[in-house]
């Protein structure tokens, strides 16, 4: 299997379903994630970020495409590979970078770190370090939407590795049983740490994993922003109409190691290089934009703007204070 495999069920974009403005916006959002992650990798290398740090490089089209189909009030939850989701949800690069470096100005005041960030304001419910936990929590977000009688939907992102957890199937059943407006998004980047999907799952068509419960599923080329967006629109419409959950398998690829220290022995460099060269989601959008007549200079100006935002976030993080020692004891319990 390879990223964005052209397979009978894989839907690619059939002509641009997005306007030029939308492509431009998507380009900017994706470049922001890529540059942000590169900077995070650099700060990690300098010892300014510690512990686990899972980069999203290569998978940018997935979150950006899905985010474009959402509206205010829709809720998002994901795993530890969460920086891209947060930026796409509109959380600030400054707040995220400051959290990565454990500073008081971070989204969790330095008490969460890379894997545990949240924003009540942006309806981003984390950042979860336990593989698969966010799926059950995610149907809870959808349960709340339904309980309150809104038409909001919830997105629960998880990996191909997480798709083997029992609670994922408990969640499919519960969501289908109670018709919860939850979109399950499997980011199939072909590996869970160093274990390829072939070695971990007897099911290689993850989009069909909800079938026993009647959860409709689609496999989508997750390197193609327009395809992602089109599938997300369909899934969102299904959920908003009260028809219950929907499953999207996004075929994607992570360029970097699982986290920062990765033995890199489980896949060949040629495999990574080939995806980078032929299927890069950002290059793909860039080409569409150039073909549509956008000039190089406009793209460069977007890139420069993004770079300024990222550099500013790194500067902000490094000059922000560490949390006050008294913070150690706050936020354990709320005052009754």
């Amino acid at each position, binding site marked *: 299997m390879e990223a964005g495999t052209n397979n009978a069920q894989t839907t690619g974009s059939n002509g641009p379903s997005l306007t030029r403005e939308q492509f431009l916006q998507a380009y900017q959002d994706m470049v922001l994630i890529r540059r942000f992650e590169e900077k995070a990798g650099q700060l990690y*290398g*300098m010892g300014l970020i510690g*512990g686990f740090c899972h980069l999203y490089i290569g998978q940018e089209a997935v979150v950006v495409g899905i985010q474009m189909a959402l509206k205010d009030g829709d809720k998002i939850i994901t795993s530890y590979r969460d920086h891209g989701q947060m930026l796409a949800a509109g959380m600030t690069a400054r707040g995220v970078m400051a959290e990565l470096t454990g500073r008081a100005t971070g989204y969790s005041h330095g008490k969460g770190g890379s894997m545990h960030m949240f924003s009540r304001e942006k309806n981003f419910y984390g950042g979860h370090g336990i593989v698969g*936990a966010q799926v059950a929590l995610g149907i809870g977000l959808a349960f709340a939407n339904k309980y309150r009688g809104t038409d909001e939907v919830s997105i629960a992102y998880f990996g191909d590795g997480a798709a083997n957890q029992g*609670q994922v199937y408990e969640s499919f059943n519960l969501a289908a049983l109670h018709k919860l407006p939850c979109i399950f998004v499997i980011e199939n980047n072909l590996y869970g740490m160093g274990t390829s999907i072939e070695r971990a799952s007897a099911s290689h068509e993850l989009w069909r994993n909800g079938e026993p419960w009647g959860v409709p599923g689609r496999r989508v080329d997750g390197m193609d922003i327009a395809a992602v967006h089109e599938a997300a629109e369909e899934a969102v419409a299904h959920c908003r109409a009260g028809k219950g959950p929907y499953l999207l398998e996004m075929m994607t690829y992570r360029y970097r190691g699982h986290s920062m*220290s990765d033995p890199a022995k489980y896949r060949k460099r040629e495999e990574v290089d080939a995806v980078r060269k032929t299927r890069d989601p950002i290059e793909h959008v860039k080409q569409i934009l150039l073909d549509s007549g956008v000039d190089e200079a406009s793209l460069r100006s977007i890139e420069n703007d993004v770079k300024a935002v990222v550099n500013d976030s790194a500067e902000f993080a490094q000059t922000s204070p560490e949390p006050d020692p008294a913070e150690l004891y706050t936020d354990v319990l709320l005052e009754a």
Partner: protein
Amino acid sequence: MAIEVLMPALSPTMTEGTLARWLKKEGDTISSGDVLAEIETDKATMEVEAVDEGILGKVLVAEGAQGVAVNTPIAILVAEGEDVPDAVAPAQSDVAKNISHSETTAETSSAKDVRPSPLVTGVSSEPEKEWGETSEITVREALNQAMAAELRRDPDVFLIGEEVAQYQGAYKISQGLLAEFGENRVIDMPITEHGFTGMAVGAALTGLKPIVEFMTMNFSMQAIDHIINSAAKTLYMSGGQMGCPIVFRGPNGAAARVGAQHSQCYGSWYAHVPGLKVIAPWSAADAKGLLRAAIRDPNPVIFLENEILYGRKFECPTDEDFILPIGKAKIERSGTDVTIVSFSIMVGTALQAAEQLAEQGIQAEVINLRTLRPLDTATIVESVKKTSRLVTVEEGWPYAGIGAEVAMQVIEHAFDWLDAPPVRIAGEDVPMPFAANLEKLALPQPQHIVDAVKALV
């Protein structure tokens, strides 16, 4: 604009590594994201990616070099047409300075000055509020009335669990609730504790207030990850943004003759966890007053009931607003000679022992903890200062149990008042046996307490 590329660290503990190979050579054009080199330690390999663009002006550390210190400049990027600066100072870069700066802060910032004593509540001197008239009800009725009252009071409260709705509750605690509140608020769940607990926690993070009934607390182990990792820790990990107002309740401890997998006490398991509150009521009044407080509390609360007590009758205030504070123990019987600290069904056992001791002229003070976390240390300590002796009684295993914590609190706060070492009475350190005689031997009996006290006094 020459930019130094520094030797990165693969982990916070890495101090040096091998520059395994260069993937770009001098003169190559670099865009950000390009892999420049590979570095290695004995544990892992990592790619060094360019964050800036330019031309690889000079390679400063050759391929194959070992023991390259983290943050050493390994290459220089220059702009088109720019010369490589001659003097490349291998001195501290700004970033390196920044790192050592943050290390010093960590060293000098001592948390000692701000440490609170979270385990001591210190509210015990306040007398308990008088609630007036009482009537006799069972613990089951008390729990049922508490849920009904809170479901009426707050539309964000709902009840989920196995058999809670149509079946009226596996132990009939939710009898009648479906009829009054409807299927949107009293919701049957499939046998899927991990899934529905996660779902309830997710809903609570949005501000809803679920009551999760476990058919027995034994099955909460299927869901313990969500209780601890998702419910108890999210407020902290989110810097105070995401509270989790949720109650996990169900029968706990030994039932009768159901064997090892259905008989154990989770008091010490859950009381271990910061971010949780843990309640273990004894009487109908405890059950009603504390369940109402648990449902209103903005934090995750574990509510440990006892199946054998469900049918027992107690006097309970009839006042519609009756509620009890979390974190406050109750002195069930005053005495001067020994303090017996207990909770849940063992309060009854302790009271029986106190009766027998009184006949022999020994006045025992019996404390019903009611809340296991936060522990009402003040009430315990005050009592021990009066009696100078401590016996703890619980049904759970002795090792790292609630008794161990209570004894430690007394040692910390009233050591000089003790006339004898504290004694703990607990369930035997074995899985619960099935045979009636063995089961009885495995659980604390009044006689054990009487004997322990007589040896102390």
